[in-house]
């Protein structure tokens, strides 16, 4: 490892000032400042949508800021490109492992900077493999057969190869983006030891994580982002996971959420001991008529997989699902729909609605049987159904024949829900139902969820927006690393308490290096 030369430069390694960035009409960053000291491990935390990834992409030269200044190593850079960032010695360990599956470890490490046999244009494969073995052994004590292909490595090993790639470039700054999301504890501990060694070598580290325990153990300083602003930067020694958690969420819960009086009916859905190894383990819960059940957890906690399983998109390894007291084995979404399950997916523009079909066509898409006579569609009946639902959900559209593409995000979401209302579904799985819609539309969707429950449906809302969950649900299930970490009664809990369960900081699960 190259120890960074003492160039007499003692200012901060990275200084971002007043960074602003908008996408279309939405402001992702509104005036963020961030100062990262040389040789420190700097934590960066914030909820989904707080602006972490936008900030990192700006630093990586993948996006350009609308306003603000980026200063690296004492020099102000106006036009950062990925190439320039690379040359400055800033390297990124991405969440997705960007490695070619059919390459050997050696080839992956040196791609782009291949050693050549002296005096020829040919690759020095022997040197590549020798260096690869050397470096992996030195940093990780890892002995991989040098001919091993990437496809044959475990997730953790791929992660290690990627970090090693960055180390080979003698970096000044390493940026880790959620590095432990796919690692087990042993592997994460190894990563932490490595990061401490990097700090000892005076390499600056920016560490992005949802796991507040990791931030506490590992970082010198932490910056909290919320709604596109840096709300606090503190030495870790002078703060706590609880305080950071408090800073991460906006606790002003106003009149966004409808008042509802839950009248719970019979059990609609019962899940018993559902397991898929590596995704979720031994998940049991029940959903009653009239109930809104919140479901939350970090990326990789298994919540998404759980919802996909309920809708027949994935198969569980073991466990049982009951609908209306009868055990069912849902193998396909079509079966799930017949059992009156409805899924409103997170990426509504790709999976929730057909953008180039009309509102009426979208609304009746899941229930065409009801509008078909002698194999032909009854357009009149379709329009009537659509108009009735447009009315009931107050969908703002030019008419039932307007293309869904022309609707706003919130109204598209209503169409996605109307589709299942038309099918008379009773168990609603809503995946991040208010992501990317404006506040007004949010309120309407919350009202819609309350109405669904009031009419006797059961609603499961998967959301990472904790205030939202607290505002609209009766109970909240928190998954942490595949297991139910907490089942909370909404009226008796708080954002801080839920967040503690979500990030695992309330448990002894916290990593200890």
């Amino acid at each position: 490892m190259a120890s960074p030369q003492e160039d007499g430069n003692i200012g901060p390694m990275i200084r971002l000032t007043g960074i602003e960035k908008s996408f279309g009409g939405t402001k992702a960053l509104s005036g963020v400042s961030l100062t990262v000291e040389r040789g420190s491990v700097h934590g960066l935390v914030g909820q989904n949508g707080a602006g972490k990834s936008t900030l990192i992409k700006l630093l990586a030269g993948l996006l350009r800021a609308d306003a603000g200044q980026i200063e690296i190593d004492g020099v102000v850079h106006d036009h950062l490109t990925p190439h320039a960032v690379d040359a400055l010695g800033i390297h990124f360990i991405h969440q997705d492992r960007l490695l070619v599956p059919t390459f050997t470890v050696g080839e992956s490490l040196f791609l782009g900077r291949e050693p050549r046999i002296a005096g020829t244009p040919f690759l020095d494969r022997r040197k590549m493999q020798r260096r690869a073995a050397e470096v992996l052994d030195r940093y990780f004590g890892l002995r991989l057969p040098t001919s091993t292909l990437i496809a044959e490595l475990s997730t953790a090993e791929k992660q290690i190869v990627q970090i090693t790639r960055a180390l080979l470039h003698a970096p000044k700054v390493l940026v880790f983006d959620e590095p432990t999301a796919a690692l087990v504890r042993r592997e994460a501990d190894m990563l932490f030891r490595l990061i401490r060694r990097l700090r000892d070598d005076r390499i600056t580290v920016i560490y992005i994580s949802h796991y507040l325990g990791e931030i506490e153990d590992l970082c010198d300083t932490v910056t909290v982002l919320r709604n596109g602003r840096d709300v606090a930067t503190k030495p870790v020694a002078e703060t706590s996971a609880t305080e950071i958690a408090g800073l991460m969420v906006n606790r002003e819960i106003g009149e966004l959420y409808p008042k509802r009086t839950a009248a719970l009916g019979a059990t609609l859905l019962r899940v018993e001991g559902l397991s898929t190894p590596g995704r979720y383990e031994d998940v049991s819960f029940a959903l009653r008529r009239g109930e809104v059940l919140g479901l939350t957890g970090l990326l990789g906690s298994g919540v998404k997989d759980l919802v996909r399983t309920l809708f027949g998109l994935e198969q569980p390894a073991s466990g049982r699902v009951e609908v209306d007291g009868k055990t069912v084995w849902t193998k396909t979404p079509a079966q799930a729909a017949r059992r009156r399950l409805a899924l409103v997916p997170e990426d509504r523009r790709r999976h929730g609605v057909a953008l180039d079909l009309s509102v009426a066509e979208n609304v009746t898409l899941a229930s065409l049987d009801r509008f078909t006579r002698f194999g032909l569609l009854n357009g009149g009946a379709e329009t009537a159904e659509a108009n009735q639902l447009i009315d009931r959900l107050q969908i703002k559209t030019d008419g039932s024949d307007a293309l869904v593409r022309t609707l706003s995000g919130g109204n598209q979401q209503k169409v996605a829900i109307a589709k299942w209302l038309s099918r008379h579904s009773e168990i609603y799985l809503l995946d991040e139902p208010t992501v990317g819609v404006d506040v007004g539309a949010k309120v309407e969707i919350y009202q819609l969820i309350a109405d669904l429950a009031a009419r006797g449906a059961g609603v499961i809302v998967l959301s990472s927006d904790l205030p939202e969950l607290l505002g609209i649900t009766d109970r909240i299930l928190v998954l942490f690393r595949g297991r139910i970490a907490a089942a909370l009664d909404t009226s008796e809990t708080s954002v801080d308490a839920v967040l503690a369960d979500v990030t695992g900081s309330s448990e002894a699960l916290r990593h200890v290096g």
Partner: protein
Amino acid sequence: MSVEAVPFGGSQQGGSEPAQTRGFGASSGTAGRRIATLLLRGGSLAVFVAVLIVFSVTAPYFLSVGNIGNVLGQSAIAGVLAIGLTVVMIAGGGNVVTGGIDLSLAANMGLSAAVYAALSQAGFGDAVAVAGALAMGLAIGIVNALAITLAGIVPLLATLAVMNVVAGLELVLTQNTVIPATGDLLTLLSGSGPFDIPVLAYVLIGFTLVAALVVQATPLGLRLYAVGEFPEAARASGLSVKPFIAGAFLFSGFCGGIAGILSVSYLSGSTTGAGDLLLPVVVTALLGTVFSRRLVPTVIGTLLSALFVSFLVNGFQLLNLSSTLVSGVQGLLILFVVSATTLLRKQETSA
């Protein structure tokens, strides 16, 4: 088998966290894939050898130096084209529908041959004719490259369109007739070299070696694979993807030009029906992937499969079997290879 080879996977067995099971599962999936790869690769080598043995027993002349030389010579045109296609497949990735494919190669050879023959008949010398044919091939490669990298058309469609244009141009140029051509170069190429083996056989071997060196042994080749297999990874390594893809199509166009010259020498002129070569060339390049450990296209793998296809045709001829059987066998080979590699790759991505 792979668990012991991967210390990390093995050490997880004692743990109790949920992800531990996943790590182990991935390793055993890898083992399954390895066995399948071994079977596919070993199996195809075994079939290759078995075919040689069957033919050499049933047709005594089959294994003679003369016959092998002839087969090599007959493989030269398809071999050069298949190597061009191989490079395109490397840079475009393994997906046959969205990945790298150049359907215009056979038509390119036909037009380049026609250009050579026409120039030669018009009284130009060998040098001008060679330059004309190569320039024609390269020009077709440029059109492909532009359509794919600038206009963003998938290679399957872009090269299909170019194929039709090129075939049409050939008809315009030749009026759908045979244009005979002669010259010193053609005489040299169509003759025999040392050991009474056709010169074309030496050309194929030489061309393969050069291409193999560049593709398998230089940083350029390694980057080509990265661009095709995982463009995001290539970008993350500071490589720009488009120049590589464009370069691959330029190269395949150039190969079309070379094959055009070879075909003029082989047939003593330009003839119609170049398009018939498309299927054998695609078979050859696809089949070549099973001769590599990683199940990726390689130049040497393509040479082996070119020989395999030619030996098959040759053996059928020596045994007086109907040549119509050959296209049937070729079609089956495509189905087999594409489904086998697709299944294996699916496993790879889900693991």
